[in-house]
């Protein structure tokens, strides 16, 4: 009987053939901790009797949720982590590099066929490289830091086959919001989602990252795309490794097969207060927005900001809208800078911040007050996610965010004149 890509990865790491449903103790290839979940993970590591981490080369640390430190407590947490990194000789990217998930991929810390864990739910983004990557809590991470392994239930896989050509101003974010609306907030719990089909095969790495990033919003343990030439070209610059084939067998057992045709897909907006509440933009067009956030691990890459800039053109943002633009990492920031987009955003009235989680953290800065509306390219619109529980967060693509920031109300990006 054939295996899914996920079963193949677990079989490799376990050293024997395993199937979905089995509970296994599996070695992990990499681990990531950040400023929010790191302090507790380190505390648990010591409580578990940990003295030295399993392999400092396989662990990275960085700070992105509250950077630069926005409180004395945040500064203390970060100082404690710096000390741990120095003692354990773990590479600490500190506050310099950007949002954890983007940095892990940029630094080649996740690769096809690997099992990578991160103490953050959006760790599933690394599945864009063909890795099995999943978010875990701090106690599980303490265990990983000590042993380099963790208990997993090998997940079943939902196969999402995507076909068709996106129309103008419609892309990966609209697709994943539509898939979330279809599968539901808990429709993929305990399972992996494998994205495949002609549309995914043509999709570049940033779009695949956006899709895999949001697998967790359906409860999934992981999102994954089988590595192909696009993946290996991306990896070439990051890691010395030879190409190998990794894919789900045709006769593998999938828990479900779903198909999506994007040729008629419209720009999507997830309305408050759940990510699975996606609707075509036309249904919510005209709703006034107080703040627009373009950034995050979901949509803070150069391609995302370039799309927003293209919609913006020479226009200005509406004067009554607070527009916050945050590139996802230092590398992305430099690309955006060199392309002249930062000047374009600033001239149009935006605040461009240094790489970090920004308003999506719901704590550091960029919070909304009661009755206010935020339109955001990030991944969660839960009540209170970006500040007041009496505020509202809508999710959309960079194109829709830019179009709406120009008019001051939720706007179909296809209606903005070029």
């Amino acid at each position, binding site marked *: 009987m054939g295996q899914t890509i996920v079963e193949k990865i677990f079989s490799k790491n376990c050293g024997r053939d395993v199937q979905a449903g089995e509970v296994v103790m599996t070695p992990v290839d990499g681990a990531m901790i950040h400023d929010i979940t790191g302090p507790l993970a380190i505390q648990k590591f010591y409580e*578990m009797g940990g003295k030295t981490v399993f392999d400092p080369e396989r662990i990275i640390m960085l700070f992105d949720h509250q950077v630069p430190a926005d409180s004395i407590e945040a500064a203390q947490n970060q100082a404690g982590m710096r000390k741990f990194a120095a003692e354990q000789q773990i590479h600490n990217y500190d506050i310099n590099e950007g949002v954890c998930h983007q940095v892990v991929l940029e630094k080649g810390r996740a690769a096809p066929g690997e099992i990578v864990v991160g103490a953050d739910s959006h760790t599933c983004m690394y599945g864009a490289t063909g890795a099995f990557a999943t978010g875990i809590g701090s106690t599980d991470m303490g265990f990983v830091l000590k042993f380099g392994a963790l208990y997993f239930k090998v997940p079943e896989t939902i196969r999402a086959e995507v076909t068709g050509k996106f129309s103008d101003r419609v892309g990966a974010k609209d697709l994943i919001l539509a898939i979330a609306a279809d599968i539901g907030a808990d429709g993929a719990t305990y399972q992996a989602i494998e994205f495949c089909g002609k549309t995914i095969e043509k999709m570049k790495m940033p779009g695949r990252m956006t899709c895999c990033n949001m697998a967790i919003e359906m409860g999934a343990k992981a999102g994954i795309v089988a590595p192909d030439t696009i993946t290996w070209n991306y990896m070439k610059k990051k890691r010395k490794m030879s190409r190998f084939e990794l894919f789900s067998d045709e006769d593998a057992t999938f828990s479900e097969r779903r198909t999506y045709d994007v040729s008629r897909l419209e720009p999507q907006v997830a309305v408050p207060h759940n990510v699975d509440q996606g609707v075509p933009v036309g249904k919510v067009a005209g709703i006034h927005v107080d703040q627009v956030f373009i950034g995050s691990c979901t949509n803070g890459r150069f391609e995302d900001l370039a799309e927003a800039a293209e919609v913006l053109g020479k226009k200005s943002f509406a004067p009554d809208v607070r527009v916050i633009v945050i590139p996802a990492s230092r590398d992305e920031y430099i690309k955006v800078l060199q392309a002249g987009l930062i000047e374009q955003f600033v001239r149009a009235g935006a605040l461009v911040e240094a790489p970090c989680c920004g308003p999506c*953290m719901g*704590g550091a800065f960029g919070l909304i007050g009661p009755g206010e509306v935020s339109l955001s390219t990030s991944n*969660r619109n839960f009540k209170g996610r970006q500040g007041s529980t009496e505020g509202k967060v809508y999710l959309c693509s960079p194109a829709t965010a830019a179009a709406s920031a120009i008019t001051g109300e939720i706007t179909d990006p296809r209606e903005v004149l070029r």
Partner: protein
Amino acid sequence: MRSWKFGDDIDTDAIIPGRFLTINDPKELAKHAFEGTRDAFAREVTAGDVVVGGRNFGCGSSREHAPLALVGAGVRVVIARSFARIFFRNAVNVGLLPVVCENADQIPDDARVIVNTKKHEIKVDGKKFPIEPVPAFMQGIIDAGGLVAYAKNTKEVPACTKSRR
């Protein structure tokens, strides 16, 4: 012990908002549990109270601060129709028992709830409902006294020891 009833898709931002995540002490976290969602909870919760949710309880962020905030408030059991995966594991790891009960919707607010994990049932104001047994491997971790105790007593597990670079 009284029940605190919540609905479907209770996310970890609702259990403990992002702005309190610099706090790592369970008792301090408990002061902000459900802040902005149900402010009375932190004020009135007493040790032994039970939190009840619908479907997909604990969805969203991997923040262990969420189950810790409940533990800090003296809550030992969360009952729901279903749980989000990371929350379920985090809860077990920090000593909060996640109980899956198909009939969780029928548990009202402020009911007297008694959980019997041996008989796999709960009593709600005297009325019995079945609950699902905890998955075997999780039960093993619970029996060992939690993951920290398990790890303390474990010398070695198979790991990728070959250095990457």
